[in-house]
């Protein structure tokens, strides 16, 4: 299969270093303390944040900081082939753990000691890049809940197919067999890398440019997320701004 055409275009018509169209929405589940939806192409992930709240399980309580609990579930209808996934399958558990650790490095957990923050991720459509989309949705939902963070963490993936580094792989490209790198960074703090995971093998010569591309992609994603946050805040600000405060 040819993933990059002679004209240098990918299967969905993108150039190699182009992300899919991204859309962010905040406050999509108003009953939660914070919520957001992140879309990249046909991948669509929702996230709800509950808390910070008093830690339910005393044994898990930390007197120094808030603990973050994360759950990742994928709707049965999210993939082309219907697959009923339990919440406890190995992939979901691993993903939830990766996201939890990334969030612990981002959220200022010491500001709410002895509490817990529940981050519930729900995938509605999976078309590649679910890992990155889940992290982005979680960050947006946490921002929506007004929980302080060091930076807007943004995640993106990149891969290597047909001798070309490709940004933001879709489902078909993820199945292409090349190396895949998933990265999340704090882009405004000098591209500090918070998450990095690779699938498939690659030589260092290949890994480096692919990794660098993913990091560059994170900065682009962060910009989109920031714009969405500012847009949403300005809507809230105007509604409240009309009041004689």
């Amino acid at each position, binding site marked *: 299969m040819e993933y990059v055409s002679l004209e240098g275009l990918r299967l969905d018509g993108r150039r190699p270093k182009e992300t899919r169209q991204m859309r962010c929405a905040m406050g999509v589940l108003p009953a939660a303390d914070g919520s957001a939806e992140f879309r990249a192409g046909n991948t669509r992930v929702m996230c709800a944040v509950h808390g910070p709240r008093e830690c339910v399980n005393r044994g898990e309580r930390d007197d120094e900081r808030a603990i973050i609990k994360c759950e990742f579930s994928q709707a049965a209808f999210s993939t082309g082939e219907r697959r009923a996934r339990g919440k406890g399958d190995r992939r979901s558990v691993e993903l939830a753990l990766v996201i939890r650790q990334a969030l612990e490095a981002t959220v*200022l957990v010491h500001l709410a000691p002895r509490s817990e923050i529940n981050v519930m991720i729900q995938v509605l459509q999976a078309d590649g890049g679910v890992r990155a989309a889940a992290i982005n949705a979680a960050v947006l939902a946490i*921002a929506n809940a*007004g929980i302080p963070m*060091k930076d807007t963490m943004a995640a993106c993936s990149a891969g290597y197919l047909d001798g070309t580094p490709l940004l933001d792989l879709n489902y078909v490209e993820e199945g292409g067999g090349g190396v895949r790198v998933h990265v999340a960074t704090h882009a*405004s703090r000098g591209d500090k890398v918070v998450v990095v995971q690779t699938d498939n093998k690659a030589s260092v010569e290949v890994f480096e440019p692919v990794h660098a591309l993913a990091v560059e992609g994170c900065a682009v994603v962060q910009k989109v997320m920031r714009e969405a946050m500012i847009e949403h*805040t300005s809507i809230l*600000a*105007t509604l409240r701004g009309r009041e004689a405060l």
Partner: protein
Amino acid sequence: MNDIAIGCFQRGSFNFPDKPSSAELVAPGEDVRVGHQTRGGLLRGHGTILVSDRFTATICGTIERVGNLVSVRPFRCTYKPETGDVVLGRVIERAGKCWKLDINSWQDASLHLSAINLPGGIPRRRNADDELNMRQLYDDDDLVSAEVQSVHRDGTVMLHTRGPKYGCMSLGQLISVVPVLVKRAETHFHRVCSDLKTDIEILIGCNGYIWVGLKHSACFTHDPECSKSQNNTGGCEREVFSTSVNAHTRDQVCRVASAVRVLSMLHLAIYPKRILDVVDRSNDWGVSNTDMLRRAFVVKFSEWMTD
């Protein structure tokens, strides 16, 4: 059954003019700039951290500067208790001589047995009997209005219910809203007269829990004084709340409660005058109680607000 109205309601669909300039708005990780300077002699306030000698925002909000203090004001955040706040809390459990109350914050608050007025009103030492009878005073799940007595360094919140205003809530309903919609004010107990006949009590808790009901007289679930005045059966029968609300009063309570919900949907600050605005509009436009929580009314009200 009334007709079912169909439509899609989206927050973003309202078009409000005069947005604040984007320079005043920040997202996490962005530099907080005041004018052109970023640091020189300024104090770091809420919602900011210091990164390589620059103030950086940690939350979404607007930049605010009071004197030399620079902070970011959020539009949605967890309730942060301060001494003197009037709050509504729900009893979670009893632990020793304390009740634990959910106050919509990141930590449950404690209400100590010694921080309440005992039934009868005579001040005295608490004895072992009182400790055993704690459930008679405030039972699990009870809603209690209280004041924040102190906030310890480690974040522990202590409440008290000394005073006639505080106690168990009855004859009304609770609405939970985003805490930032409530401004700290001189008083949080309000009596509004929505139709010149009925007095409705609104308690706007600083923590975003809002109570709308009849005139609230502070009492315990099992206050002997209360029970005695209403029936003489006593015992475990909880007849304290037997007083029925007449239909007209209930209609008014519903309207006020719906008004609070409408304000919350539009993310508008909640205070008595604004609540009455919503109630008045609904009356003026002949909107029935049922229709107040339908999209048509919410949109119409938001349009009225922008005019």
